[in-house]
């Protein structure tokens, strides 16, 4: 796995705003993600999570504010150092699992053939689809497609990995498997930025940012956020609601 400078944040967003025509999607949002952690962006649908991820990977530009990835503005120059798993499966359904993963390995500049074959195998084995590697993607279940999509995102060993709602639509068993993969990746030094709207996912993250209406309303570790409610034994749902009410109180 590629290494990030120990003191350098993997990702920073500084007072970032973004809007689709008149709709404000991100509102002066600031964020700093330390390297080697799993960082969860938690919030309801429409909170701006996907827009933030698209902005962080350089697919869209902020209307104001700035973004840095590994200390640099997002650009093609550093694109090979990030992995991106979009919300849609974004796979070529006519191609086999191996062909899909191999394609992404090639465009992410894993040029040495022997190394590429090894990484493709490693990625497919990691998501436990080696036995199905010759199957066309169109013949796979939704959960399997999610796994192929993850393999495509990690095949080039990126130090920073963006996962947009990676567990949506997965059954509980597969969800556990995914979190095992993610723990393995952070163990290898990869920084994960994961968006989700379920608190099940939130509990697995090292750090969380609760998002609502384009803003981050709270951040910290799951335990810190639970303790901030002041009620012993609070769940993350309760913590989220607590911060929503507090934000509403501040706004009124």
């Amino acid at each position, binding site marked *: 796995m590629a290494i990030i400078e120990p003191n350098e944040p993997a990702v920073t967003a500084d007072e970032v705003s973004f809007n689709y025509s008149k709709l404000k999607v991100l509102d002066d949002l600031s964020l700093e993600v330390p390297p080697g952690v799993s960082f969860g962006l938690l919030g309801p649908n429409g909170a701006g999570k996907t827009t933030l991820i*698209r902005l962080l*990977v*350089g*697919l*869209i*530009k902020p209307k104001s504010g700035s973004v840095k990835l590994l200390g640099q503005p997002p650009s*093609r*120059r550093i*694109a*090979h150092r*990030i992995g*991106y798993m*979009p*919300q*849609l*499966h*974004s*796979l*070529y*359904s*006519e*191609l086999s699992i191996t*062909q899909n993963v191999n*394609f*992404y390995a*090639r*465009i*992410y*500049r894993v*040029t040495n053939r022997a190394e590429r074959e090894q990484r493709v195998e490693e990625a497919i084995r990691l998501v436990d689809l080696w036995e199905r590697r010759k199957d*066309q993607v169109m013949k796979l279940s939704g959960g399997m497609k999610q796994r192929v999509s993850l393999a*495509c995102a990690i095949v080039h060993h990126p130090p920073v990995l963006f996962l947009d709602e990676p567990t949506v639509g997965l059954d509980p068993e597969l969800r556990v498997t995914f979190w095992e993969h993610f723990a393995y990746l952070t163990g290898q030094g990869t920084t994960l930025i994961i968006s989700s709207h379920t608190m099940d996912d939130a509990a697995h993250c090292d750090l969380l940012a609760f998002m609502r209406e384009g803003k981050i309303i709270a951040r910290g570790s799951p335990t810190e956020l639970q303790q901030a409610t002041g009620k012993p034994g609070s769940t993350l749902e309760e913590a989220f609601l607590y911060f929503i009410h507090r934000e509403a109180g501040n706004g009124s």
Partner: protein
Amino acid sequence: MVPSQAFTIAVRIINQLIRDRRTIALIVVVPLVVMSLIGLSFPESTVLDYIAPALLATLALFFSFLLTGISFLRERSQGTLERIMASPVSRLDIVVGYLFGFFLFALTQTVIIILFTIYVLDVHYYGDLWQIFIFQIVIITGAVNLGIFTSTFARNEFQMVQFIPLIIVPQIFLCGVIWPVEQMPDYLQWLSSVLPLTYAVDGLRDIMLAGKTLLDVGLELGVMVGFTVVFSILAAVTLRRGAAG
């Protein structure tokens, strides 16, 4: 631009289409059916000889535009374009990769149409066969890029199909395919002078009917190459990071 990246994309497109056997069958069969019907509907061989170059140019433009436009739109709607745009691949790599990927199939289709027209429909021609092929290659290269560019403005396949009556059909009526441009009102003649099919039809007619060479049709060839370059640039420019979705 990194040629190996464009090559990777081209190989992926070829692999995708090869594994989609129904599409491959349609790529081969549809032009044969269309040309057979046209051949049967023109019992007078002299009329067919005259109209054949225009049909070859039109079908090359139409099929290449449609094939690329729909495929590229799928790339947008399925999110794979967005995923590629987040990678180190440049816009030019994508356009060139697409061009080469689809070029192979568009060329196959064109070869089938030309050979069928000449050897089965028995259309007479005077120019060299290889010069006819070269001219057709320029047409399909432009059409592939026009398809990519046009797909920018469609959000689904239904919308993409609507571009056929908007972009292809007017050219059939205005570019001398059915009746001579000279017989049209001045303003329509002006319009036809800015449409690529006019030059495609004129150039191919000169080669096939008058036995002219590529050098003789340098103006038409040059204009077609110009259209191709413009469409390539437009296709690359409109592929902004973030254009998808």
